C-alpha cells in the first residue's frame, strides 16, 4: 500500500526541498506552460521538449528521487501511448492540413499513413512524460501541508469577495493529514479480515465484492468515529473557524527562491520568444530536417 504514491514526499532537505512552496507552485506552472507551447516544426518541438526533460531530470536528481522510480511511474503510460498512436494513425489528415506537404510512411489499400501521425503521437507522449516529471519534482520535495499553505496564500485575494480560503485550507490540510492514518487503517482492517479468511487478491467478482465490502464498511465506521473525535478535540481547544490565525512556520521567499525563479524565468521567456516568433533553430542555421 505504501508504494502506491510515486514521487511522494521524502524529507531529504535538498536545495529544492528548502524552496518556498509558493515559489515552487509558480515555477511548476511556468514549466508546464513551457511544455504546452507550440513550436514551428517537429524538430524544434522535440528539441524544446528534450530541454525541459533534461532540466526536470536534473531537478529530480537534486531532490534525490531515484531515476528508477521515475521510470516506474512512466511504465503505466504504455497503454496511453498505444491509444494515442491508434488515434493519430487512424484519424485521416484532411481539412485545414495541406496533405501534399505531409510525408507518406506507407499505405494500406489506398489509406495513406503519414510520418506526421507518429510524430504527433510522440509529441503528446513527450508532453505527458514532461508533465509527470515536473509534478514529481514538486510532490517529492514539498509536504502536502506546505502545498496547502501555499495554495491558501494564492487564494488570499479571494477572501475579499467572501471566499472562505483559510477554512478551505484547514479542510484540505486535515484531509491530507489523515491520508496516512486511513491507509494504516486500511492495512489493519485488511489484515484482520485476511485472518478471517478473506482473500483480497484472488476469486471471482462476487467474492471480490464481498472482500471489498468487508474492508470499506469498517473503514467508513472508523473514519466517521475519528472525525467526530477530531471535531470534539478541536472544540475543546476552542477552535473558531472565523478567527484570524497566525502561523508557527512562516513562508519565506529567500535567495534560493530568487535564483530558481530567475533560472526558470529565463527558460520560460526563451520558450515564449521561440513560440511567438516561430523561431526555428534548424532553419536559422540552415540545417534541413523534417
Amino acid at each position, binding site marked *: 500500500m*505504501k508504494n502506491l504514491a510515486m514521487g511522494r514526499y*521524502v524529507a531529504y532537505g535538498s536545495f529544492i526541498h528548502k524552496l518556498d512552496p509558493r515559489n515552487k507552485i509558480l515555477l511548476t506552472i511556468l514549466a508546464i506552460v513551457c511544455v504546452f507551447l507550440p513550436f514551428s516544426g517537429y524538430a524544434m518541438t522535440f528539441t524544446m521538449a528534450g530541454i525541459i526533460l533534461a532540466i526536470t531530470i536534473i531537478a529530480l536528481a537534486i531532490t534525490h528521487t531515484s531515476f528508477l522510480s521515475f521510470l516506474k511511474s512512466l511504465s503505466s503510460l504504455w497503454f496511453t501511448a498505444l491509444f494515442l498512436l491508434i488515434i493519430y494513425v487512424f484519424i485521416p489528415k484532411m481539412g485545414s492540413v495541406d496533405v501534399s506537404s505531409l510525408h507518406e510512411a506507407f499505405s494500406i489499400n489506398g489509406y495513406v499513413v503519414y510520418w506526421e501521425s507518429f510524430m504527433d503521437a510522440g509529441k503528446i507522449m513527450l508532453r505527458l512524460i514532461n508533465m509527470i516529471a515536473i509534478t514529481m519534482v514538486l510532490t517529492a520535495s514539498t509536504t502536502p501541508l506546505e502545498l496547502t499553505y501555499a495554495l491558501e496564500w494564492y487564494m488570499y485575494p479571494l477572501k475579499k469577495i467572501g471566499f472562505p480560503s483559510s477554512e478551505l485550507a484547514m479542510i484540505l490540510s486535515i484531509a491530507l493529514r489523515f491520508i496516512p492514518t486511513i491507509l494504516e*487503517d486500511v492495512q*489493519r*482492517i485488511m*489484515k*484482520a*479480515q*485476511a*485472518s*478471517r*479468511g*478473506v*482473500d483480497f487478491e484472488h476469486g471471482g467478482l462476487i467474492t471480490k465484492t464481498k472482500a471489498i*465490502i*468487508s474492508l*470499506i*464498511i*469498517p473503514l467508513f*465506521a*472508523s473514519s466517521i468515529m475519528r472525525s467526530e473525535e477530531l471535531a470534539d478535540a478541536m472544540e475543546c481547544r476552542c477552535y473558531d473557524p472565523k478567527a484570524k490565525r497566525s502561523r508557527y512556520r512562516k513562508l519565506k521567499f529567500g535567495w534560493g527562491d530568487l535564483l530558481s525563479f530567475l533560472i526558470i524565468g529565463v527558460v520560460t521567456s526563451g520558450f515564449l520568444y521561440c513560440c511567438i516568433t516561430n523561431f526555428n533553430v534548424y532553419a536559422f542555421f540552415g540545417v534541413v530536417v523534417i
Partner: protein
Amino acid sequence: MPIDFRNLGYVYDKKSPFSHEAIRDISLHLDEGKFIAIVGKTGCGKSTLIQQLNALLTPTSGEVQINEFCNSSEKKKRTKKYKELRKLVGLVFQFPEYQLFDDTVEKDVSFGPKNFGLKKEQAIEEAHKALNKVGLDESFYDRSPFELSGGEKRKVAIAGILAIHPSYLVVDEPTAGLDPRASKDMMQMFQSINKEGTTIILVTHDMNLVQEFATDVIVMDEGRVAEVTTPVELFSKDLEHYSLEKPLIFKTASKLNASKKYNIDESKLRNVDDLAKAIAEGGK
C-alpha cells in the same frame, strides 16, 4: 505439532529511508496445548512477531514453521496455502471490534467459517456455538454489530475468530478497555478453550493476567527474545529492566512475607482466591 521460529527477523520498509528493524534473530519453540503469554514494553516487536504466525507478514530473514506450514524469507521454502494456515492460526488483533462489517451479528460471525469453505447453514451453526462461548445469547443474533456496546462488539469480533476453530489462537491485548468483570469472563473463556486443546498465545501488558492464566512466558526486549520462562520464575526476578510490573497478588504476598508474620509460598499463587486461602491459613 509445535511452532518453531528459526532465526526470524523482520524489517519494515526495507530498502527505504524509513526502514526499521522490528524483530531480529528470533529462535523459539512453542509447544502445543499451552497457554503462552508474550510480554514486553511497547514497541518491542510483539505484534510484528505474531503476524508472522499466519503469514500476514513474511519474514525478511529466517523462517517460522507451524505444523507443516512454513513462512520463510526464502520463496522456495514458503508454503503457498496461506488460507489453510490462517484457518490453523486464528489471530485476534488489538481492538478487533473495528473489523465488524455485516448487518447482523450472526452473519458477521459466520463470515469467517464461510470464507474457509463451510456451507451457509454449517457456518451459522458454528457462529451460534462461538457466540454462546463468548457469552452472547440468541437475542444478539439479529442485532446490528454497530449498535452494540464496546465490550459486546469485542466479544462478537472474538467469536468471529473462534468460529473458525483454529488450533492456535493468538490474541493481542484482548482485555484492553474492557471493564474488570468482562475482562475476567474473557480470560476464563480463553482458559476453557485452552483446556479443550487449543494453544493460546496471549500478548499483554497485564502481569496479573499472566500470573493467573499463563503456563509459559516469553519476554521480549528491543526486538529480541530476552527470556523464555514460567510466570513463577519470571516474577521472582527483578523486572525493572524490562519495565514490567509484578502482579498485585505477588506484591501483596511479598509485603506480607516481609512483615515476618506470614510465610506465603509465592510460587503457588495463581489468583486472589489462592492468596486469600494462604492468608486464612496463616501462610504456614
